[in-house]
C-alpha cells in the first residue's frame, strides 16, 4: 500500500522536473535577417469556406512566392477566438495582421489599440468599438470593395438575357436574395438592379432578404417565392445561406448568379458570379507593407483596379453580350459609368 503512494509521489516528481526542463527552453529564439511576418486570422468559416477566407489564403500564398515573407494562418473556431488570435500575432511583433471579414471589426479595434506599432488590415470592415464606431486607428487599414461594380457586371448579363429573350421564362422579371440588409449586400443589389434596368428598361427586379447568412433553407424559401413570381434569374447575396438560392434555381430550371467567389461548381444553374477579389486585396495589403507603403484608412477595390469583377460560369454567352460586358467594364473603369451603391427598393 505504501508502495502505491511512493509511486504516486514519484510520478508527481517526474512531472515537475519535466515542467521545469521545458520551461527553461522557453527564452531562446530570434530571427537573424529581416523577413516580413504576416499573420492571417480567418473568421469562423475556416479556410475551406470556398469564399473570403480561402481567397485571403490564396492572396497570402501568392505573396509568399513573390516576397520574402513568413506567412502564418490561424483559423478561428468561434467568435471567442478573434481577440486571442489577433493578439497572438501582434504580441509576436508581426509586421501585418490580417483579419478576414467584418465579424472581426470589434476585435481588430481592440487589439489595434493595444499594439499601435503593428499594422492591421481587415477585409470588409474597420477597427471599431462596441458601438460599431470606427476608431480610426492609424495602424488599421480597411480593405473595402465596390460591390456595386461586381453587381453591375452580372446585372448586365441578366438584363441582356432578358432583353434578348434568352432566359427561361422571358417575363422580364429577375430577382436578388440578400442575406441581411447591410451595406455590402445592398451595394451588390444596387449595382445589379441598375445595370439590368439599363440593359432592359422593361425589367422588373424583385429583392428579398432571408435575414440569415448561414442557413440555406431560409434562402431557398425566399428564392422559391421569387420563382413563383416569374423570376428566372436569381442573384444570391447571402453567403452560405445563398447556396439555397442556387439550389432552388437549379430545381426550378431557371438561372442563378453566385456571389463573392466563383460559384460555378455550387450548382449547374449558376451562369455567372459577381466577384469580390479578396485575394487581390490581401496580396496588395501585404505588398504595401513589404514596400513600406502601408497607409491607415480605407483602401477600396473595384473594377477599376481589378479588385472586383465577374466570372462567366455554366452558360455559353453570345458574342454581343460579351461585347456589351467589355464595353460596360471599360466605361466603369474610365469613370464614364458609375454604378450606384444606394438602396432604391
Amino acid at each position, binding site marked *: 500500500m505504501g508502495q502505491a503512494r511512493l509511486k*504516486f509521489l514519484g510520478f508527481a516528481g517526474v512531472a515537475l522536473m519535466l515542467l521545469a526542463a*521545458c520551461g527553461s*527552453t*522557453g527564452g531562446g529564439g530570434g530571427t537573424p535577417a529581416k523577413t516580413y511576418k504576416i499573420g492571417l486570422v480567418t473568421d*469562423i468559416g475556416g479556410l475551406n469556406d470556398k469564399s473570403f477566407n480561402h481567397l485571403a489564403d490564396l492572396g497570402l500564398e501568392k505573396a509568399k512566392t513573390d516576397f520574402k515573407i513568413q506567412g502564418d494562418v490561424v*483559423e478561428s473556431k468561434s467568435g471567442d477566438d478573434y481577440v486571442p488570435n489577433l493578439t497572438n*500575432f501582434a*504580441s509576436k511583433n508581426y509586421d501585418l495582421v490580417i483579419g478576414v471579414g467584418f465579424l472581426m471589426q*470589434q476585435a481588430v479595434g481592440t487589439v489595434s489599440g493595444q499594439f499601435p506599432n503593428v499594422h492591421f488590415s481587415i477585409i470588409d470592415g474597420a477597427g471599431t468599438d462596441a458601438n460599431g464606431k470606427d476608431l480610426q486607428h492609424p495602424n488599421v487599414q480597411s480593405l473595402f470593395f465596390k460591390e456595386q461594380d461586381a453587381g453591375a457586371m452580372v446585372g448586365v448579363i441578366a438584363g441582356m438575357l432578358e432583353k434578348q429573350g434568352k432566359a427561361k421564362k422571358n417575363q422580364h422579371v429577375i430577382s436578388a436574395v440578400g442575406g441581411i440588409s447591410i451595406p455590402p449586400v445592398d451595394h451588390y443589389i444596387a449595382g445589379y438592379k441598375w445595370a439590368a434596368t439599363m440593359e432592359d428598361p422593361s425589367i422588373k427586379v424583385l429583392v428579398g432578404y432571408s435575414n440569415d447568412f448561414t442557413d440555406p433553407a431560409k434562402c431557398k424559401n425566399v428564392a422559391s417565392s421569387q420563382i413563383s413570381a416569374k423570376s428566372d434569374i436569381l442573384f444570391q447575396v447571402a453567403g452560405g445561406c445563398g447556396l439555397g438560392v442556387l439550389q432552388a434555381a437549379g430545381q426550378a430550371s431557371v438561372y442563378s448568379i453566385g456571389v463573392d467567389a466563383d460559384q460555378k461548381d455550387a450548382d449547374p444553374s449558376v451562369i455567372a458570379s459577381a466577384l469580390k477579389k479578396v485575394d487581390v486585396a490581401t496580396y496588395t495589403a501585404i505588398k504595401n507593407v513589404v514596400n513600406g507603403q502601408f497607409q491607415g484608412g480605407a483602401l477600396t477595390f473595384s473594377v477599376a483596379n481589378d479588385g472586383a469583377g465577374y466570372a462567366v460560369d455554366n452558360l455559353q454567352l453570345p458574342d454581343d453580350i460579351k461585347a456589351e460586358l467589355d464595353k460596360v467594364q471599360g466605361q466603369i473603369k474610365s469613370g464614364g459609368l458609375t454604378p450606384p451603391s444606394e438602396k432604391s427598393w
Partner: protein
Amino acid sequence: MGSRPGPRLPRALRRVAGGFAVPLGSVIFAFIVGALLVAVTGGDPFQAYSGLLCGGLGIACANGENSALQISTTIVYFTPLIMAGVAVALPFRAGLFNIGAEGQFLAGAVACTFIGVKFSNLPAPILLPLVLLGGILAGAIWAGIPGVLKATVGAHEVVTTIMLNYVAQWLIRYLIVGGPLQLPHGFSVSSPIGAGARLPSFLPNDNSLIIFGLPAGVYRVHTGLLIAIAALAVFAILLWRTSLGYEIRAVGQSQRAARYAGISVPRTIIVTMLISGAFAGLAGAIQIAGVDHNLTDKYFNDTTGFEAIAVALLGLGSAVGILLASILFGALHAGGAVMQQDAGISSSLVQVLQALILFSIAANFLRVLRFPAFGRRPSAPSPTAPAAALMTEAAKAPPEETQT
C-alpha cells in the same frame, strides 16, 4: 459510503488516485490516438503537442509567444466552463441528464445583456449584482421548465432541454438581427452593456502600462474567475454538506428508496434543475459582463454548454474534477491556435482530442485501470458513478408513472 476494512492512510489516497485513474487514462488515450493521427497525416506530433502546451499553459514556448498571455487566455476560456460544468454535474447526481446547459447559458447571457443595456446608467454597485442575478434567474427558469415538466407530466429532460437550446439560440437571433436589442445601425450585435454592468479585469485596461512585456489590456482575466471558484465551492458544499444535497444524491441513487425515506422526488427534481440552470445562467451572464460586453453572432453557435457536458463527465461530477477538466479544455482551446501557427497543424485537432476524451469516458473501457493498479474495489456503483450508469439512470421511466 461502503466501509471496507483496510489500512487507513493509503485508502484516502487510493480513493483519490483511483478516482483520477479513469479520466487521466482517457486523456492519455486521447493524446496517444491524436499523436498517431497527426503522424499518419504527415505532421510532427511532438511539435503539435509542444504548440498545445505553449498555447494552453504557456510552457515551452519556442516561437516568441508570451507565456503570461497564453495563461490569461486559457483562464478566460475555462472560467464559464466551470459554472456550466457544475450545471451539468449537479443534475447527474440526481440521475438527470441536463443537455440544456447551452440554452440556460444563453438565457443568462440574454438577461445580462438586456438588463445591462436597459439600465446602463445605473452605478456598478447596483447594476453589476443586478445583471448577475438576472442571468441566474433566467438560467434557472430555462432549466426549471424541463424540471417541472419532468416532475409533473414525466416529459424526458433530455428531449426538453435540447429543444430549449434551440429556443434560446433563435431567441438571440431574433433579438439582435433586427430585434429590440440590435445596435442601431449595427449588424447582428447588440448594444454594449453599461460600464457599471462590467466585471472588472484583474489588470487595468491601460495600454501604457506594460506587464510581462505587453500592454496590460491584453490580459483579459477578469473577476468572474473568483465567482466561478465560489460557485464550485457552493456546489461542493450543497452536494455534500446540506440535506438538499443528500436528497439529490438519494434521488440519483434510487428514486424508490428516496421516496421510501420520505424525500419528495418531484420536488427534488425541480429544485435540482432550478439550481443547475442558475449556475449555467450565471456562466452566461459572466461571459457577457466579463468578456464580451455585448451579444454578438458568436452566440448563435456557441458551444460552452456542450463542452460543459464533457467537462462534467471527465470531472466525474466532483468539484475538483470539474475544475481540472475545465482547465484542460480551456488550455486545449487556447493551445489550438498556437499549434496551428507554430506547427501548421489545424486547430481542429483540438476538437478531435476532446471527442476522443469524451468517447473513452463514455465507453468506459478504461475502467479496468482501477483494479490492478490501485487494489481491488467492488464494482458496486460508487458515488462517482461513471457516465454510462448515469445515462442509464437518466433514461429510466419518469418518477410519477412508477408510483402506485
